[in-house]
């Protein structure tokens, strides 16, 4: 499909051009910052359970409303922005793209898989072909937010590690039981 082709996304009120960029906002927990360039996890391309779809922001509508990518970044501070074209979403991944205007910021759209659920393969391939557009601030997140690599296990203090691990287990299960247990020291 040529970039100039008009694509109608599942009954969208306005046509979406195939070369229009769809911006996907990705939280830091989903970004593999140890890779160069950073790449999102396939989890970044899951549907939200509330909408049964994946949210994106379409560049054409952002621009026509007089806004810019930097405005989107300000609205969603702390998020990374990756992009796929509408053409990729529809042609390569067989998705439906539908405009879904929201009052807080222009350009919101929903991406759905016709089968009802995007497969792991599609999510992983989306993660590998999407383009990094911007990242929070000008620097990568600090080292504490970076996922541990195998080499990073060097020098871990055992007593401290066991205490933190134990504490987190108790906190996690306390949430489900509704009680707060004091972890054994």
């Amino acid at each position: 499909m040529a970039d100039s082709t008009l694509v109608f996304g599942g009954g969208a009120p306005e046509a979406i051009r195939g070369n229009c960029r769809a911006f996907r906002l990705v939280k830091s927990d989903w970004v593999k910052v140890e890779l160069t360039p950073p790449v999102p996890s396939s989890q970044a391309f899951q549907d939200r359970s509330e909408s049964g779809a994946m949210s994106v922001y379409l560049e054409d509508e952002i621009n026509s409303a007089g806004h810019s990518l930097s405005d989107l970044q300000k609205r969603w501070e702390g998020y990374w922005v990756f992009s796929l074209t509408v053409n990729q979403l529809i042609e390569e991944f067989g998705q439906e793209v539908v405009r879904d205007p929201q009052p807080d910021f222009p350009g919101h759209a929903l991406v759905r898989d016709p089968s009802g659920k995007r497969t792991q393969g599609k999510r992983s391939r989306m993660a590998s072909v999407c383009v990094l557009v911007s990242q929070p601030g000008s620097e990568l997140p600090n080292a504490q937010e970076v996922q541990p690599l195998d080499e990073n296990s060097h020098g871990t203090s055992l007593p401290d590690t066991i205490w933190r691990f134990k504490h987190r287990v108790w906190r996690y299960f306390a949430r489900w039981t509704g009680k707060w247990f004091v972890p054994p020291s």
Partner: protein
Amino acid sequence: MTASVLDFPVGGNWRWSSTNGTQQVAYVNKGADNLPTATLGRERSYGQRTDVLQRLLELSFKSPQVQPYTLARVLEWVHNLPEAMPNPFVATGDDGSISTEWDVGGNSLHITFERDMEEVYFSSPTGEEWESSLDAVDKLSSAMRIIALAALSRR
């Protein structure tokens, strides 16, 4: 959750050591001439995985959608990974699923757990690409071997 055997040279071991009363984990690299070709069974790598297990708990605590059963399955999976496998990137999804992902040397092995289901995706620079579940033991074992070897060659 049955793929457990990897056939490839072992590059070294993780060891606990004590210095001035403080215990630490350290990687003991074997020399190039001392590389036994081994069939790695369930060589538990608890010390190596502690950071990942903690990260999983931390992420699950932040994600109310994650069910304890899903978390338990992932914890077991990570805990039982063969020692030569590098630590995975882990992430929780908005739908309550949990992923363990490896991206090494152009090879990608992504596994997502959701309740009693799991989805596996593998791709390599050679063009091999498939989707399956953890029941595909042979394919999964082969993919894990590729990831482990790629990680080993980068050390």
